[in-house]
């Protein structure tokens, strides 16, 4: 089955039709998607700042990661749920779009970096080093890239 044929099939499903025909449903899902994204971005920023020795410096990295990494995973799960609903509602807008696939690759990279940062935090060493600052900077650049790719989906 080609992508085009899959899009036709998905857009014709009862669930997709329900979302498409419910007034405001797509807008509401997008709004929830953006609110989760904003929350995740700030959590990631706080973690990245702490990793490079800034931000909430009075709290150990291990403690901050114990609080913020699970919250990041919760936000990411909600983003994947709302994102999946948007794909079901408008498959042509996403599955035919290079920006969407770039975004998904960046989401995978961001997830792997979240795991890495969690591991760095667990070794309990409060070391501020160039590699850690580089990881923190890369982490935030990836999240910015995800936002950019997400917005560019609309510009196909």
């Amino acid at each position, binding site marked *: 089955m080609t992508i085009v044929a899959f899009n036709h099939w998905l857009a014709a499903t009862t669930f997709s039709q329900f979302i498409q025909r419910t007034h405001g449903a797509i807008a509401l899902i997008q709004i929830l998607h953006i609110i989760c994204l904003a929350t995740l971005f700030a959590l990631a*920023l*706080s973690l990245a700042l702490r990793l490079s020795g800034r931000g909430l410096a009075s709290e150990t990295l291990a403690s901050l990661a114990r609080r913020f990494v699970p919250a990041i995973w919760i936000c990411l799960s909600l983003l994947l749920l709302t994102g999946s609903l948007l794909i079901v509602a408008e498959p042509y807008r996403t599955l035919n779009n290079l920006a969407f696939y770039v975004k998904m690759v960046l989401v995978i990279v961001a997830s792997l970096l979240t795991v890495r940062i969690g591991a760095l935090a667990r070794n309990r060493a409060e070391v501020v080093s160039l590699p850690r600052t580089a990881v923190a900077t890369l982490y935030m650049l990836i999240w910015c890239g995800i936002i950019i790719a997400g917005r560019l989906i609309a510009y196909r």
Partner: protein
Amino acid sequence: MQWLQGTALAAAVAEVWFPRVECLHVIAMAMLAGTIFIVDTRLLGLTSREHSFRYLSERLLPWTWVAFTVSVLTGSLMFMSNATGYYGNSAFRLKMLLLVLAGLNMLYFQFVTFRGVAAWDHGHPPVRARLAGLASVGIWCTVIASGRWIGFSL
């Protein structure tokens, strides 16, 4: 509005730069709203209770202000590119009204409620502070919603 929309800068944004400006606007919005949510949930007594409210807000609010500045700059450029369209759009007008409300809420908190912060800085904030936090979360979620709705109604 038509004069503003007819300027060279507005034309450049409309014809070339709009996607880039919009992406910066969304990044700034994410930082702005996200940092506000972290501070407000502390004000509600729900999260980050390890830190005093003053410590958390002093560490995060500078980033909020940077994000707000970028949001205003990028938002102004976007507005200029289609001033007549945005000006007449009810979702855009609602968003501007909500931003004023958010500012008033913040000013009231800063000049009234915050004066007694020493009494609750490390503990559970009083009802007035929690109401300010709840109002702030509600207003900023609605700012995001009205901002997204502009795209559907323009």
